[in-house]
């Protein structure tokens, strides 16, 4: 088991490297010169060149990459072009905020999705099933930002029940899981939870139906087992597939909340990325994308390991 674990971790290293190359290159492949974000348009050419040298932007790309990677490995993501502060100082609180939002959205989406999926499977072919399948299809099709705005209009503007912007006062350190702060989380988390809810509902429905159709369910009934015990067999059989989908969805939530965080001005990585893109703040962009991608790789690794422990058929050798 230990050597298996070690090997899985080692497999993740080349993936992480490839990810870092891609996110380094993507920024340089984008049109526009990052130097324009630092200097004003009427700066003399020799000053521009001097700034370019100071930021290392005149070196060949591979050199820039190697230097960057070397610093990143020591936790130095450089300084933000826009604010002049170390990227890590800005990234830390943003990641924590995004994590809060993702976990909130995951809690809502996974719980609702599982409940709906099970309900649909048990009512297979009848109207509750059909309406849940339709709801799941609709929920993965609705644009995030549109839904976010509708929720803001309904709950903030019309009924004035919930705040529509920010994460509460006092910055990231002042966050507590009390209503004073959580009320800021409700609308963005709800908005973000819709897609994972639909996907989890569809997956759970499919997996539960698949398990219920297996021969061994007849065997379990034939042994005289009652509903609760049979449900335990269904859960244990369905868990590996469902949990792996949930792990991937959590990864998407961590990395894919740019639009929603922007709509709600939630001070997370997505909000930060959006700002960095508009300001051509390359160090922030690279650092954020890299950390999010690494979190995604890590989540995948965890899902893999979890599946191995849950399903005896996956060889551990």
């Amino acid at each position, binding site marked *: 088991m230990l050597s298996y674990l070690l090997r899985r971790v080692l497999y993740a290293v080349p993936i992480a490297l490839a990810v870092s190359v891609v996110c380094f290159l993507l920024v340089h492949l984008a049109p526009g010169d990052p130097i324009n974000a630092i200097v004003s348009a009427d700066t003399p050419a020799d000053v521009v060149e001097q700034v370019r040298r100071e930021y290392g932007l005149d070196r060949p790309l591979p050199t820039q990459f190697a230097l960057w990677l070397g610093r990143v490995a020591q936790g130095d993501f450089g300084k933000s072009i826009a604010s002049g502060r170390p990227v890590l100082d800005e990234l830390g609180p943003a990641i924590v905020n995004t994590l809060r939002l993702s976990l909130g959205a995951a809690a809502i989406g996974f719980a609702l999705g599982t409940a709906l999926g099970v309900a649909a499977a048990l009512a297979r*072919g009848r109207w509750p099933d059909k309406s849940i399948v339709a709801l799941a299809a609709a929920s993965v099709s609705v644009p995030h930002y549109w839904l976010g705005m509708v929720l803001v209009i309904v709950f903030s503007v019309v009924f004035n029940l919930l705040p529509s912007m920010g994460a509460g006062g006092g910055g990231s350190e002042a966050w507590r899981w009390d209503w004073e702060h959580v009320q800021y989380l409700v609308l963005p988390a709800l908005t973000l939870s819709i897609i994972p809810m639909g996907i989890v509902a569809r997956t759970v429905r499919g997996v539960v139906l698949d398990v219920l159709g*297996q*021969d*061994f369910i*007849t*065997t*379990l*009934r*034939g*042994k*005289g*087992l*009652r509903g609760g*015990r049979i449900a335990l*067999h269904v859960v*244990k*059989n369905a868990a590996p597939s469902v949990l792996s989908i949930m792990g991937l969805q959590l990864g998407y939530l961590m990395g894919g909340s740019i639009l929603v965080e922007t709509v709600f001005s939630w001070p997370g990585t997505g909000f930060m990325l959006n700002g960095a893109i508009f300001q051509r703040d390359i160090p922030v962009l690279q650092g954020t994308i890299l950390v999010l991608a690494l979190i995604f790789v890590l989540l995948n690794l965890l899902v893999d390991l979890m599946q191995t422990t*849950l*399903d*005896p*058929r996956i060889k551990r050798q």
Partner: protein
Amino acid sequence: MTSAPDTPLVHVRDLRVAFESREPGVATVAAVNGVDFDLAPRETLCILGESGSGKSVTLRALMRLNPARTTRMSGTVRVAGQDIASASEAQMTAVRGRSVAMIFQEPMTALDPVFSIGTQIAETVRRHEGIDRAAARRRALQLLELVQVPSAARRLDAYPHELSGGLRQRAMIAMALSCRPRLLLADEPTTALDATVQIQVLLLLRELQREMGMGLIFVTHDLGVASEVADRIAVMYAGRFVEEAGVSDFLRQPMHPYAQGLLGATVHAGSRGRPLVTIAGAPPRLDRLPAGCAFAARCDRVMPACLDAMPALAAAGADRSARCLLVTPPRTALAA
């Protein structure tokens, strides 16, 4: 549950099972169309028939294991003193696995892949006898030893995919026997196994049945297997018994043309050097059965009367009967 020695263990009269589709426009499938039989304690009945003849459905009806939502079942079914047709679902869960147990055809898919076989045996015992985890595990070990699984203690924690087909089927048998059922139902238990393993499992099953004094209903399409284990044979065709006889009578002289055809199409010692004769045609569709004899379309001795009405099951000698107009009861003069 205490029945007198002469009351049958299984009593089935006019059993009918149909599967209704919930899709509009899809016809109802009449899988079992009036089956009658009795089984004495310790007796073995083999139900012989090809795929789709209704033999597995009949077997499952004895435990009411056919899918509840689509199944329409009627007739009288009494097993070990319990009225199966009218029992509540809660009563059925107390019967299943305790007084009646079933062995399935494909042990790979019939066992839960993510539970160890020890757990799967123990949970049956715990369900019906309410003993604690440790005691149930000890019972599971004894049962694996009973069905002659080598190094049983180690196999207790094995998952189904870690065992060979023969061992999986032995585990399945151990599970079925775990609460000492009075009736064992076996649904082609050896079909998925290699020929050599097949005979080992068959002999084990026969030995255990005698030791434990169980009644056994054994469903198969293999005449060789049937002749190995059966006291009596019932031949099933299109959801009905077309012939029922003691095994030696049946093998010596099958009476129904379909049964004769089955025997003619089977490899046995007497068929050496002769070509095997197959039965032409295919069984009728179960969603539109003919009014007359279901076998008439394939029968080479068909008469006009065969097409009018389904022949009744007629006595054709001591303890045997057949559903064919050609079969007449033996004259009393000859019998005397």
